[in-house]
């Protein structure tokens, strides 16, 4: 779910950069308004490492394979720190492994950043439920919903930027196949969020109070 260089038209790449810059400015603004903006940095650094490494973990979903993207976990764990963390992680992935690209860094940050912020909103409003089953459902919805939203954004942006010389039917079929391959990933990431939040709830509940 990382769009590389040379796939999107210039307008979409620039638009992606503009929206990503706006979201990052908003996030940094909210972080700066916190009583101790540095307090969240250790966790943001650790989650950036997890996000960076996760994209190399491929899960075979015949006929292709998908990799972990973790937007739900980033949003639920980091709150406003999620967007800068995702931006840094994506930049490292683009430069080191060619996952995504620098011209499409903005677009990719929007594809994963918006679901992360949505996950943050969901956990902030519903993350205080104490009943175990209800908490598990919220956690699952956060992780799975964020992946589905990211896939929807990815597909919509690709279809919007499809050049006229391509066989649109074949490309639509390929995008549909890729989106379907991400359904098991959504289940997996939903369970990851349930497991991580459940673990934190038992060991250090103060850590999951999203800011």
């Amino acid at each position, binding site marked *: 779910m990382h769009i590389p260089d040379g796939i999107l038209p210039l307008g979409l790449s620039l638009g992606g950069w503009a929206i990503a810059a706006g979201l990052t400015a908003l996030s940094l603004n909210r972080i700066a308004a916190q009583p101790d903006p540095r307090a969240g940095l250790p966790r943001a650094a650790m989650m950036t490492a997890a996000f960076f490494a996760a994209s*190399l973990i491929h899960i075979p979903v015949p006929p292709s394979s998908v990799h972990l993207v973790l937007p739900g976990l980033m949003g639920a764990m980091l709150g406003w720190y999620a967007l800068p963390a995702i931006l840094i992680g994506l930049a490292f992935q683009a430069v080191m492994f060619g996952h995504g690209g620098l011209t499409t860094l903005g677009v990719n940050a929007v594809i994963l950043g918006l679901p992360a912020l949505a996950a943050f909103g969901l956990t902030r409003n519903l993350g205080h439920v104490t009943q175990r089953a209800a908490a598990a459902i919220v956690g699952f919805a956060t992780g799975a919903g964020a992946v589905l939203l990211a896939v929807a954004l990815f597909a919509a942006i690709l279809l919007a930027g499809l050049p006229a*010389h*391509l066989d649109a039917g074949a490309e639509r079929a390929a995008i549909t196949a890729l989106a379907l391959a991400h359904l098991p990933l959504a289940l997996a990431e939903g369970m990851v969020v349930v497991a991580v939040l459940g673990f934190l709830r038992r060991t250090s509940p103060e850590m999951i109070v999203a800011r």
Partner: protein
Amino acid sequence: MLSAIVKPLIAALLLAGPAAAHGAFVDMGTTEAVAIQARYDTGALMAGAQVSVFAPDNPAQPWLTGMTDADGRFVFVPGDRAGQWAVQVRQAGHGAMGYVTVGTDGAAITVTASRTGLSWAQRLLMVASVVWGCIGTALYFRRLRPAEPA
């Protein structure tokens, strides 16, 4: 009697023109072609991916489009325009570019493949370096926090 049948036949053949020709010839020869094989970085083959070949003088409109076969392969013969030909392979938002340089004599073809994959050791070291940097950052900002009262 016989000529009454043959004469209209000859006339009909003459009027029918080229469509009446049933002989065919195939000219054959060998040429220098460019063969590509596209893979994802997981090693999986890009089967049925769309290939666009761009001539040196027109990077906007493809000179040739096609599709890779089940083994991710595609073969084409570049035209005689000298310069750098670009080949893009893409499928569902993933893709890569490769370049082919055609010399002025039309025969000399040099191929510049897109970035080759990294070995697992390289990947592991890169991931470990970045993760270690993140751990260092985390520890640094942890130390900066005011000591909590015992």
